[in-house]
């Protein structure tokens, strides 16, 4: 194959791979965006939280967790991790104290906060 065609094929395959990755992510393989949408709807209108109940295995993107925590007054959010049905993240609480925050992965509710060791 010629050099030019090789480069063109490589770009085409790369673009297809990234596109496939994006589609897989949108479909929820590891990144359930449906959860992210829901959590944002909840922010806009907290009374609608019950609508989320029919989605059993929701999840949210780390970005959505960050947005959600920001809307609750948390700052300096980092190390967002998913673990066993909840999310945890390091953050600075509204008062300024460093805490670990635990969120329900299905509803986005803040379950508890712990002072960081």
């Amino acid at each position, binding site marked *: 194959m010629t050099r030019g065609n090789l*480069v063109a094929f490589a770009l085409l395959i790369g673009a297809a791979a990234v596109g496939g990755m994006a589609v897989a992510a949108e479909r929820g393989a590891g990144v359930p965006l449906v959860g992210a949408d829901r959590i944002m709807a909840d922010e806009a209108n907290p009374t609608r939280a019950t609508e989320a109940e029919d989605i059993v295995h929701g999840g949210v993107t*780390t970005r959505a967790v960050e947005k959600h925590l920001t809307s609750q007054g948390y700052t300096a959010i980092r190390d967002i991790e998913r673990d066993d049905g909840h999310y945890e993240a390091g953050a600075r609480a509204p008062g300024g104290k460093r805490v670990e925050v635990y969120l329900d992965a299905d509803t986005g509710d803040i379950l508890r906060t712990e002072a960081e060791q």
Partner: protein
Amino acid sequence: MTAEPAADAAASWHSIAVWDPVLRLLHWTLAASFALAWLTGEAWMDMHEGAGYAILAFIAVRAVWGLCGPRHARFDAFVPTPREVLAYLRALAAGRAPRYLGHNPAGGAMIVALLASLLTASATGVLTDSLGEPVEALHELAANVCLALVLVHLAGVIGTSLLHRENLVAAMITGRKRRS
């Protein structure tokens, strides 16, 4: 109406169609998408992601066009060897770089570099959504590399335009260049 064929004939006598319409459309929409993605990166995530997907689509279409498009759009016509790029850059530094009707070797290398770094930025952008901060740093690095390349690209276009006394920006809009 009757004046038009004559005007066309006069235009084509002095200039020649080099960049096809698809190539020009891809060039400017890609440029606009990158600018949009850059500006919305921190502020408007839906638009940022939309611009990113658009960039990804343009890379794919450009690659296909590079395989089966018209002569000057084909990657075979402009992907240079490193030796060709160096020789051209040396000549450019000395102010006697030869004029190319299609892409010169440095321009050809720039296209490959830009498309590859835009693809890297797209890939790391998609992964940032699921993997978070560590990849986000890579995404920002890739985006900065893209911006740096765009600036070098602009410098190259301006420098080469001055050297050969032609308006390469206009050529990318009209598709036409002086014959020689």
